[in-house]
C-alpha cells in the first residue's frame, strides 16, 4: 500500500501535464492569444520593414529579425504564463496540497515544462506557417528545426518562470520579473547590435545568457540549408540552461514551510 515517492514518475509527470493543458483548454482567450499573437506581431514587423531596401548582398531586415523573433516570442510568453501559473499554485494552497501527495517536485516542474512546451509547439507551427507563406520569410534550413528551437526556447522560458515565481510574493512582482529576465537577454543577444561590435565585457555577459544561443541557432538555420554543428551546440546550450533552471526551481520548492 505504501509506495515511496520516486524522484521522478512518468505517470505523475504526465498527470500534471494533462492537468495544466486542461486548465489551458478552459481558457479560450489565452489559447487564442497564445496561438495568434506572435503571427500578428510578426505581421507588424513585416509591414514595418517591407519597403525598406536591404543592403546589397545581405538578407532583408525582416528575414533576419523576423526569424529570431520566432525564438523570442515563445520564450517571453511562456516565461510570463508559467511564473503567474506557479505563483497561483503557491498562493492558492494547491502547491502545499500537491506536496502532501505522492507527486515529486520534479514531476510537477517537468509536467509544467511539457505542457507549455507542447503549447509552444502549436504556437511555433502556426507562426512558422504564417511567416513563411503570408510574410515570405526566407529560411534556408529546415522549418522543423525552427519549430524545435522555438520549443526549446519555450521550455527555457518555462524553467526560468518557475524559478522566478519563487522570488515573487505577488502577481505585481511576478510580471515585473519579465523585463528583469527577458530584456537584458534580448538587448545583448546580438539582434540590436552584432555581438562582435559590443564592448568586451558586454560580450562576456552576452556569452552567459541563454537567449544569445537561441538567437544564434535560429540565424544558423536561416542562412544554411544544411544543419550546422554550431546550431546543434547552441540548441544544447539552451536546453542545458533550461535543465539548470529547472533544477534550481526544484531547490526553491520546499515541502516544509514556516
Amino acid at each position, binding site marked *: 500500500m505504501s509506495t515511496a515517492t520516486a524522484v521522478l514518475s512518468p505517470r505523475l509527470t504526465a498527470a500534471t501535464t494533462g492537468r495544466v493543458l486542461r486548465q489551458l483548454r478552459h481558457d479560450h482567450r489565452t489559447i487564442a492569444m497564445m496561438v495568434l499573437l506572435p503571427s500578428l506581431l510578426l505581421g507588424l514587423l513585416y509591414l514595418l520593414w517591407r519597403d525598406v531596401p536591404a543592403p546589397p548582398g545581405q538578407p532583408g531586415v525582416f528575414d533576419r529579425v523576423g526569424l529570431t523573433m520566432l525564438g523570442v516570442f515563445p520564450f517571453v510568453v511562456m516565461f510570463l504564463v508559467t511564473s503567474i501559473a506557479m505563483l497561483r499554485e503557491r498562493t*492558492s494552497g494547491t502547491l502545499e496540497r500537491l506536496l502532501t501527495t505522492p507527486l515529486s517536485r520534479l514531476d510537477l516542474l517537468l509536467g509544467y515544462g511539457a505542457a507549455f512546451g507542447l503549447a509552444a509547439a502549436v504556437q511555433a507551427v502556426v507562426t512558422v506557417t504564417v511567416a513563411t507563406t503570408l510574410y515570405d520569410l526566407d529560411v534556408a534550413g529546415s522549418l522543423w528545426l525552427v519549430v524545435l528551437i522555438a520549443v526549446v526556447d519555450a521550455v527555457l522560458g518555462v524553467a526560468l518562470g518557475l524559478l522566478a515565481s519563487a522570488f515573487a510574493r505577488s502577481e505585481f512582482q511576478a510580471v515585473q520579473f519579465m523585463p528583469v529576465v527577458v530584456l537584458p537577454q534580448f538587448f545583448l543577444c546580438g539582434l540590436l547590435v552584432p555581438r562582435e561590435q559590443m564592448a568586451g565585457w558586454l560580450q562576456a555577459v552576452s556569452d552567459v545568457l541563454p537567449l544569445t544561443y537561441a538567437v544564434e541557432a535560429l540565424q544558423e538555420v536561416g542562412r544554411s540549408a544544411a544543419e550546422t554543428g554550431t546550431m546543434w551546440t547552441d540548441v544544447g546550450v539552451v536546453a542545458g540552461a533550461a535543465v539548470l533552471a529547472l533544477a534550481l526551481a526544484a531547490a526553491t520548492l520546499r515541502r516544509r*514551510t514556516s
Partner: protein
Amino acid sequence: MTDAVTVTDLVVDRGRRRVLPGLSCTVPAGRVTGLLGPSGSGKTTLMRALVGVQQVRSGTVTVLGEPAGSPGLRSRVGYVTQAPSVYPDLTVRENARHFAALYGRGARAADDALEAVGLTGAAGQLVADLSGGQRGRASLACALVGEPELLVLDEPTVGLDPVLRVELWERFHALAAAGTTLVVSSHVMDEAGRCDRLLLLRQGRLLADSTPAQLRADSGTDDLEESFLRLVRAQQEVDASGQGREHRREERARSGASRGSEQVSRA
C-alpha cells in the same frame, strides 16, 4: 486502542511567535478526533505538522508509525486545508480525477468521491462557478479520492448548511467505522459533540484530551461550549497566579483579577 498519531514535545515558531510551545498528544486510530479551540490556538499549525508541511523547531511527530512527512506517508495521509485548495479553472470532475491520478486511482474513484460529498450533479461545472460551500466539498473530495488511512481536515464544515453538515459528519463516522483515522478541526462547539475524542487547544497548549461525555461530566454541564469556557477560566486562573508569583508578589491578587477578566475569549 492503538494511536495513529503521536506528538511529543512539539515546538513550532511562526515568524517570531511561538505557536506551539511544546505540545504532546495522541490521536487514536479509527476514530474521529476533534481539534477544538479559538482561532489562533494552533490548530492549523498542528495539522500542518501532522501532514509534514510545517517547519518544526523541535519535538517529534509520528504518523502511522513513520515520521510525519515521510515519502511513504504521502499516499496514506490526506489533507484538506481551510481555504479550498482546488483549481478554480478546472471542473469539479477534472479536479477529482487529477488528485485521483496522483494517488494512483482511476476515474471511478474520482466519481465515488464526488458522490460522497454530494457533488455528482455539479461534476461538470468549473470550480470557479461554485458556491463557497460547494468549493469546500470539492476540496474534500480531492482528499477522499486517495482513500487515505489518516484524513486531516481543517474546518471542513465552514459555510455548509445544517443538512450538509450532518451528512458530512455521518460520512466521517462511516469512514472511521471502516478504519480511517480522522482529525477534524472546528471552532464550532456544537460539532465537538460529534467527535469520538476531543483535543482542546488554547494558545498552543492542550487544555483537555477527553471525550464529549467525560468533558460534560468533569465540568458538570451538558453544554460543551460552557465546559470549554470553564476549562479556559480555570486555566487562566492557574496562569495568572503563576505569573503573579514570578513577577511582583505584592500585585498578585490584582493582576490575577485583571487577566482573568480581559482574556475570557469565546471559543
